[in-house]
């Protein structure tokens, strides 16, 4: 029994050592995967460990790179903050008569680099951001990225996205986490720890995102629907008329929009924003209010009013980085019996004043909402709702004794 306990303890210790090695040797691990040569990786690790110990005696494996210059000024010997071994980086602008813009990486001395990362050219030419990347496999763990956070300081980054395009780094809205910092001068680690590098990376990404947002907006302005409806809410008879297949390509046709609709019938709507909410109101999320016949209902206010509304009115905390809702909303949808409870509450409140044959203006406002307050409207629209006459018109849709929208809500609230 005692033997077994001792054995378990020993095994646990080995396991822990194994885990800590894995964490500390991020780049090396990727490299092993990249080359597919585990033996080579082990050899490289041993070699680099030896070199590291030599280094501590004053030697250095890649110091010869420090005398080389390049256009981006990144070539040189680097030391890791987490993985403390020395590494070599060399920027190659041109090879075999072609512009390649590659960052070559060595962790052991060899003629061929152990890794070749690609410069994202447009980030550099337009924003002077030096971002290098490499897809070693299609999964998120197979992605390596390096961003220069200060002269002679590189942040090594991992992401949460899997491969979309081999020739592109992960999208700007992906999560980028700094896992290590590499510097030519070890003294830079006093300033550049992982957290600080992360903050700098976040800042760089904000710049890139902001520029990208401008670019996206420029592209969106090619679409009449965005050009004509930014800051407004468009309405249609179904969500299918407002959907589109690709992001930032609003191909929906204005001809399918409506400005008048039968009260109680399916009504879909989609707001288009002048700026993404994350840019115009950082830290805010969306709220929607409905106004008709002098009554107003507010999704967030209703959420706070009862558990029933709280359960049935989810917060709209997506799409903050988009120029429109990816999925259109509905007031009510008769084909799948889905409704916005805030709109149903508006119908319940106004039911006594609704008359057959009359038409009512419904104003929908999408708000930037933060800390319990509607801060600013980000899109508004008005649609006319007609109370169609007859027993099978709006009356049935709203007040059918079993399925009417108002009946269903009243029954639910009376439970």
């Amino acid at each position, binding site marked *: 029994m005692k033997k077994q306990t001792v054995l378990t303890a020993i095994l646990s210790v080995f396991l822990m050592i194994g885990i800590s090695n894995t964490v500390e040797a991020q780049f090396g691990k990727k490299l092993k995967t990249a080359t597919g040569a585990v033996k080579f990786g082990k050899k490289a690790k041993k070699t680099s460990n030896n070199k590291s110990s030599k280094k501590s005696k004053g030697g250095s494996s890649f110091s010869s790179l420090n005398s080389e210059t390049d256009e981006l000024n990144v070539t040189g010997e680097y030391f890791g903050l987490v993985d403390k071994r020395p590494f070599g980086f060399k920027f190659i602008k041109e090879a075999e008569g072609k512009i390649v813009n590659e960052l070559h990486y060595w962790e052991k001395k060899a003629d061929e680099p152990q890794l070749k990362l690609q410069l994202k050219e447009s980030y550099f030419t337009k924003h002077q951001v030096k971002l290098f990347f490499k897809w070693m496999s299609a999964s998120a763990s197979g992605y390596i990225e390096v961003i220069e956070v200060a002269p002679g300081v590189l942040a090594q980054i991992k992401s949460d996205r899997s491969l979309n395009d081999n020739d592109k780094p992960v999208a700007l809205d992906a999560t980028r986490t700094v896992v290590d910092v590499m510097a030519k001068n070890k003294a830079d680690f006093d300033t550049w720890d992982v957290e600080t590098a992360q903050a700098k990376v976040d800042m760089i990404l904000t710049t890139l995102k902001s520029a990208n947002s401008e670019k996206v907006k420029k592209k969106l302005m090619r679409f009449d629907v965005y050009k004509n409806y930014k800051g407004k809410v468009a309405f249609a008879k179904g969500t299918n008329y407002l959907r589109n297949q690709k992001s930032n390509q609003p191909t929906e046709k204005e001809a399918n929009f409506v400005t*008048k609709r039968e009260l109680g019938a399916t009504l879909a709507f989609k707001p288009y924003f002048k700026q993404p909410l994350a840019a115009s109101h950082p830290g805010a999320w969306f709220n929607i209010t409905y106004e008709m016949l002098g009554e107003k209902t507010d999704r967030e206010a209703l959420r706070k009013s009862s558990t029933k509304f709280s359960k049935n009115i989810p917060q709209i905390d997506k799409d903050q980085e988009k120029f429109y809702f990816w999925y259109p909303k509905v007031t009510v949808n008769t084909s799948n019996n889905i409704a916005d409870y805030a709109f149903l509450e508006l119908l319940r409140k106004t039911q006594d004043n609704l008359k057959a044959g009359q038409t009512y203006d419904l104003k929908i406002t999408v708000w930037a909402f933060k800390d319990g307050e509607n801060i600013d409207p980000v899109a508004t629209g008005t649609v006319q709702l007609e109370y169609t006459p007859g027993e099978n018109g709006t009356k049935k849709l709203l007040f059918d004794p079993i399925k009417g929208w108002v009946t269903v809500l009243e029954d639910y609230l009376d439970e």
Partner: protein
Amino acid sequence: MRQIRIIIVIFLLSISSSVIGQESQNRILEKFESGKYTVYKLNAKKKFEKIKKAWPLEITKQGANVSTVLVKRAGILDELFEADIPGYPAYFAFKNFRLSFINDYAVYYEWNGKQQAKTKYILVKPGGSFNGDLESVNKSVVTYAVATFKNQTGARANVKEAKAELAAAERKINSIENKEVSKIEIQLVSKPSKVAHFSEAIKYGVVVTLKNGTLLKTPNLGGKIPWDDFILSHEGVSNTIDEVRVDENAANIPNDLIRLKIASKYHGSLKASKSINTTNDLSIQVNQNGFWGWERHKYMTVFQGVDGQHAGRGDNLIVKVKTVSHKQSGVKINKIEIYNTTDDKLVAQYKLLTTTELIINAKGGQGDNGKKGRKSENIGGNGGSGGAGGNVTVIKDPSTTKFNITINNKGGKGGNGGAPYYSSGNKGNIGVSGDDGNISNQVKNITLNF
């Protein structure tokens, strides 16, 4: 007696401490100054760990209020945090991060819509101390922030009031209220070539000429006049700003033209209108098909076994048509009324050129496919029956000699049979197709009230 006194003292102390906890950042920051703050960050084990370098903080005050806090992260990255509500701040915000000062330190955290805080750093003032854990810090931030939000009512009202004042001032500048106006006009931004039921929107704006010759315009024409300066009373189209769409119901377009009508809210005599003849030349498709088998559960209670559900039949319709002259252009048009006798509901009233096609779909739905068979049976589920097509009766007035109508009222196909449980078994039977609907034509005098 002494115990009661102690309890009262503890109670009063707890009240006073909770009040202090709900003080605005302006009050709390009276005890803070700019300087180098000791920073604790969360490590991988979710414990706070002191980092080497202190971060400089610059606190900017405007009178008694703190307007901004500049955090020089690691001494090199500037992050400018601004007060959420200047008169009574609960936090200072920089992008998605917030900074709230509590006790001897500032908590640097993220906040989400579910009112949860995720602390990233603790910034301790010079001479201050910190020894909390993540959970208690997060909790204290939430408690403080939520309580302070409640106390912000007055300050928030002030902000709202200031915003409203700004908006009112801007409105006053741009509104035609109290301005001497000589005329108002409707200006079309776009007019589709076809002005008919379901045609594209007609976009318009309003141009106001002041007596001094100045031109003012609504926002869609590049101006700033608020739309609510005008009363709209459009005819034959939706009564909406910016754009209108021709009414789907011909009964609402009695004179075969649409009319945009506006009036100034502040100048009784100032009105403008613009009339556009309808062209009635857009083909219309009316769908009154039966539901498909897989949708049956939406219409009635179903008990699902291995057999597919039966589809619904197309609705029975009566289509009445009478030819009249367009009241403006004089061309022949058909007045059409479609009545659904299955639902006992008027479906539509249209006016179309005699050559413009009307497509009526009253097809039966398609039966649901049979499901995979049971283990105990050597056959898959049978397909559901297709729905029958609806019967369509077309009643033509003697005046109608030309009516371009297409009626699709075939019965729906039966669903496919389901696979057997074992491959040695047989597929289920294909469902029976629905019967085609009848089409009958009648000619008789009819009256259409539109």
